[in-house]
């Protein structure tokens, strides 16, 4: 082995990648050529210095969490343009909200698959929301009023329902519009809140009517939870969450394309979650 050949072998020698015969020739040359030996020792010590002093660091938890959050927001990308008729800034989340409403309904109604009769399901508060949102996304239905001012939206509902309607404060979100529709003759008040590309959908209806189960229905297990004064929270497989709670005569529901704890952090329903 000459000095040029030795130089080419320094790096694999440092990294212990020489075959036995190569290693023997390498050592033989190093024993008779001090300059080459020093070159080998220099690279070895440099490699060792890096390995000893420069360490791998863990990815910050905040970065990992942010990635997961952004992945969740990515999944609604690519929505057809048809859904942009109402408001480009909220259509994605509206779509997601409709999805969670549908999903929650499926979860909540064991009889769904056995009884596909759509007219009957329209009486369900969730199903009604599906119908409403399908119309909103398709452009056939628009919010009755668009405003970022809670008092304007509050005034819109005044005197129109037999139960109190409150335009809630959704932390970090701004109201964007409200709708009032009827289901089986019972009003369903709905308010949309927006922050970036995320929408929180809050609806309210008559709690007594829902308990009666004649015009509006809820699955028994949800009714039981609400009657005990608790809020009911359910998250579907897509990480979309629904919260139901009661306020006096009013049944309130909030739906959003976000995980349970995240949605709860935006809502003031903590007392009902005890």
């Amino acid at each position: 082995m000459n000095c040029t050949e030795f130089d080419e072998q320094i790096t694999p020698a440092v990294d212990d990648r020489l075959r036995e015969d190569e290693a023997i020739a390498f050592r033989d040359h190093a024993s008779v050529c001090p300059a080459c030996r020093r070159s080998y020792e220099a690279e070895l010590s440099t490699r060792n210095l890096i390995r000893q002093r420069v360490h791998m660091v863990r990815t910050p938890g905040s970065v990992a969490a942010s990635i997961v959050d952004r992945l969740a927001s990515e999944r609604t990308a690519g929505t057809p343009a048809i859904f942009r008729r109402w408001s480009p800034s909220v259509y994605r989340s509206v779509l997601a909200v409709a999805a969670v409403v549908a999903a929650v309904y499926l979860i909540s109604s064991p009889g769904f698959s056995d009884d596909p009769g759509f007219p009957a399901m329209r009486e369900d508060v969730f199903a009604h929301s599906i119908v409403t949102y399908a119309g909103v996304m398709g452009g056939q239905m628009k919010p009755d009023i668009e405003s970022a001012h809670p008092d304007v939206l509050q005034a819109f509902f005044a005197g129109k329902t037999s139960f109190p309607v409150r335009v809630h404060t959704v932390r970090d979100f701004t109201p964007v519009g409200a709708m009032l529709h009827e289901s089986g003759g019972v009003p369903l008040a709905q308010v949309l809140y927006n922050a970036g590309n995320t929408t929180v959908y809050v609806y309210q209806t008559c709690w007594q009517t829902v308990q009666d189960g004649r015009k509006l229905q809820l699955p028994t297990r949800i009714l039981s939870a609400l009657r005990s004064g608790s809020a009911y929270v359910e998250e579907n497989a897509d990480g979309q969450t629904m919260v139901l709670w009661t306020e006096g005569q009013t049944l309130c529901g909030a739906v959003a394309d976000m995980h349970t704890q995240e949605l709860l952090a935006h809502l003031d329903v903590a007392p009902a979650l005890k």
Partner: protein
Amino acid sequence: MKAVGKTPKQHEFETEALPHADLLYNYALRMTNNAADADDLVQETFLKAFRFWDKYEKGTNIRAWLFRIMKNSYINRYRREAKEPDTVDYEEIQNFYNTIRDERSDTHDTPESAFGNLLDDDLAGAISALPEDFRTVVILCDIEGLTYEEIAEFLDCPLGTVRSRLHRGRSLLRTRLTKYARDRGYAVEG
């Protein structure tokens, strides 16, 4: 109440891709030498990977796939900003390398004790000052512990290229560290 759920795609992506975040983060950190930039680069990489997840061939080297996405992102973001050439000028580097090798040949004692006095910032600075191609293999091999074979797959280049870049990268690094040690007044014979 149900446990936190995700779409199947998101679940699969988080299971298969996210465990390699450290590999990407450390590379990004050493390439940008800035934690905030590394954060952005890693996030951008994973978002791109997620968008193109259907393009990833299951069973192939996901680390190499992710790395290439990050490398492209890095090039698009930083090389354009810095207006650097797209490739290293190897002739210039070779000349520089030959020069420093001659200088090193005159060194009778290695400056290990002087290196021991260097600050971690000196080491980080010396690494970040390496030409990009050399820095990449030094990071992947000596910091991240990848094999030559895996680095060759990451960079889509022959093993011999990995070996030669590593050799030159370490030599350049040593020269810079020697200079730092001298500048700081630590004894370096030679």
